[in-house]
């Protein structure tokens, strides 16, 4: 963190005073930079480490404030108690289904929408894009959406988590830009000369060239699904369909009650214990899947998002 490459050696050479002066200034800037960045990364890292340590500590020690960096009284108790709540285990499974299913469907839709829009020869392109953009700015709101989901018979089914708002216009725009910048029109022309149909071109040429943007889309959609709870709250009424985030939220809100309203102190105590036990281990469990997926997608991710964002 504190190594300042090359700069010190040049300073010791001491045959270009002006340059030395500059490097000293450079060094100060560099040190400031590293200090600031170090502090930032500490600020980001500390909560992560704390949550991990708290999850692996005796709940009592977390409560009394003894855990501040490393686990105190190593214990897997809180992880074990997760499995006493079948809602959590089932919620985890549901979230996996929603994340994978949602990501696949949404990515497919995004590619299918973005590719035609990237072609210059699509008639009415501006209008279609305008309509897409309109829905990005304005939407019907909660109750019209609820009506649509209700009347289409999706209410309280898994589809309610995946179908409504499956495709994000934002992703369509990024993907379209990616196509525009990486797939030249000439490629399409030469393919057509060789007798390739539009669909064939999309399938055999465009898709193989678009792995980075596909990875980006999959990751964006999967993480969004994984973190979402509001649609589940509004559209689902059967506990066995609830995603993990909703269960997690339930645990947090239910133990956070106005104490003067609780007529049964034993009940309050029970919720308090539950929350203490589960809070941190649940956060760890809920964070693991995105963390696991991220490294595999990351190399595409940076590339894809960068390229897509080059031109508007």
């Amino acid at each position, binding site marked *: 963190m504190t190594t300042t490459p090359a700069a010190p050696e040049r300073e010791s050479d001491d045959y270009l005073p002006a340059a030395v002066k500059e490097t000293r200034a450079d060094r100060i800037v560099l040190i400031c930079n590293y200090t600031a960045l170090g502090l930032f990364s500490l600020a980001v890292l500390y909560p992560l480490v704390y949550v991990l340590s708290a999850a692996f500590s005796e709940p*009592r020690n977390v409560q009394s404030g003894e855990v501040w960096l490393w686990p105190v009284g190593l214990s897997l108790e809180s992880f074990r108690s997760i499995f006493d709540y*079948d809602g959590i285990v089932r919620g985890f499974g549901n979230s996996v289904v929603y994340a994978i299913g949602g990501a696949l469907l949404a990515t497919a839709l995004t590619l299918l929408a973005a590719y035609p829009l990237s072609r210059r020869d699509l008639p009415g392109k501006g209008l279609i894009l305008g309509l897409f953009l309109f829905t990005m700015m304005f939407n019907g*709101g909660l109750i019209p959406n609820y*009506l649509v989901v209700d009347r289409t018979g999706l209410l309280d089914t898994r589809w309610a988590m995946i179908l409504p708002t499956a495709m994000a216009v934002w992703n369509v725009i990024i993907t379209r830009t990616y196509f525009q910048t990486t797939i030249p029109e000439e490629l399409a022309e030469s393919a057509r000369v060789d007798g390739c149909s539009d669909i064939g071109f999309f399938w055999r040429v465009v898709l193989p060239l678009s792995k980075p943007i596909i990875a980006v889309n999959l990751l964006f959609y999967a993480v969004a699904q994984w973190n979402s709870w509001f649609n589940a*709250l509004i559209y689902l009424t059967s506990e066995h369909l609830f995603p993990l985030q909703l269960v997690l939220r339930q645990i947090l809100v239910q133990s956070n009650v106005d104490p003067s309203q609780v*007529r049964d102190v034993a009940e309050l105590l029970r919720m308090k214990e539950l929350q203490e036990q589960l809070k941190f281990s649940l956060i760890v469990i809920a964070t693991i899947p995105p963390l696991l997926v991220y490294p595999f997608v990351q190399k595409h991710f940076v590339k894809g998002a960068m390229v897509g964002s080059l031109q508007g």
Partner: protein
Amino acid sequence: MQPAVRTGRIRRRTFVAGAAGLTAATTSGLLSGCGPDEAVGASPESLAAPPATPGPKLGGIPYPDGYVGPVARKLGPIVTEPTKFVVVVPQDLTVGDWAKNKFTKWLEQRTGITIEFRQIAGADEDVTIKVNAMIAAGDIPDAFMGVNFSKSQLYLYGAQNLFVDQTPYTDKYAPNLQQMFRDYPLAKKLATSPDGNVYVYPSFNDCYHCRAGKSRTWINTRWLKQVGLAMPKTTDEFREVLRAFKKADPAGRGRTLPFVGYKEDGTNQVTVDKFVMNAFLYNPTSPWLVVDGGKVNAAYSQDGWREGLKYLRTLYAEGLLNRDAFSMTAEQLQRAGNNKDGPLLGVFQGNYWGSAMDVDVEDPTARWHDYEALPPLEGPDGFRVANWDHYTGFDPRLVITRKCRRPDLLVRWADFQLDLEVMMAAYAGPGSWSFAKRGDKAISGKQALFGISGTWAPDKTKDTWAQRNPNYRSGDFRLSERVDPTKPTFEKPLYEQTRDRYFPYRVPIEQQFPPVALEGDQAALDASLSLDLSGEVVQTMARFVTGKGDPADDGQWNDYLGRLDKIGLRPYLDIQQAAYESFQG
């Protein structure tokens, strides 16, 4: 109401109504979105059956002398042919999946009524959003159970004919509820909307210790002995005790917190004023409304409030009140309360010990045993009152909608649950409780009526309804729970200390502002004014107490009163006055 077509194309009108409902869930246009093609309202056969007569009381049950409360009777099924209702319930971790819950099956077997549960997850606000969406979209169940509708909401939806007036059904088919209303006339009054209708099958929980819970305060008696002082009786003695705590510094290294203020979880209210103010004037805590000879007033604009602020300011100036009294979180308080190498807390406000520390009922030397309830203090003018909630206990439980064809059956289903045995099965889980034996001692010190296996209801077996259903927990019932002499819970000391230290000083019921129902537009105005006013009150309290302002300065005090007026204290009080008068009838 315009009946919309449920299937097929959605009408524009429905959309518009829905959108209106989103922005203002309290507008009356909201219902035009509902009205499915099924027939609406109760069928004529709902009132055809003869009135229900209560079954004979079961014998051999050790009711304490003079017992008032739910009793066990011989029960038969409510229906003979399969009957099903759709009921919306909040999700509850203790209940688990309502459809698979053990008591759900138990009750279904005994009543013959099947419930299709729709479960809503999340906090109360989330449930409200979802319920509003359902209502606006016309996706209406037969009933809502355990959804916390406010009195204003009940009145609003009732007046819109969405919720059913249950009076004709409960009069005829709910003998247990009638009994409860006779035992607790207040329960009936609280269940009745300003139009005289009862849109809810209520639950009543006569929780004795809850009545003092909003201001109950705890003092470290071990420290009290250590500094050789008696339990303080006046504000001056209280200050002496705090000074002694600070001087003796039992926690060491100046870590002693003689009197600690913090922000409550859930409500986010500050706690500094809750106890001490009652030595200067009656402080009912937020929203600080009091009734003074039939006139509704706000405690925070009174002279007594000003005197209280001056007193608190001196405590803060001497370092007897913690520096972060207005920003400390409940979690930080727990940390201080549970501090490993000895207690840090002298005096803290909290519903019970668990507000500040772990409550270990099995360890007789656990720290919470050192803390005892601090009786209300006498102020310099001889004023002393205990903030006592006379109206606690009422909960809206079962709300039947006009979608329901047979409200009579749902009312009988609810009334079934007020039977002592059914109630216990719902509360503790079928088979997890038993009647007490003759000679068993209860919380009240008298003969016990029932006992729960284990310290309290089991939590991981998913066999209770966690009191989300109709209940009749009378005072006698609650206090007749058996106390296991080998494993005493905190219920008994909590009851006794409340009875001995707060009840004698309780504020008269005439001075307490009751829970009232407001009409639609007034409810919205009330909500916004109440929020702004309480923001101003807390901010000014913090400034005055921490010495950034001085309540003794006439200019500053008048500025504060001026700001309250500007926010709209007068119209706010007018709304409350009208609602109060309508409540009193």
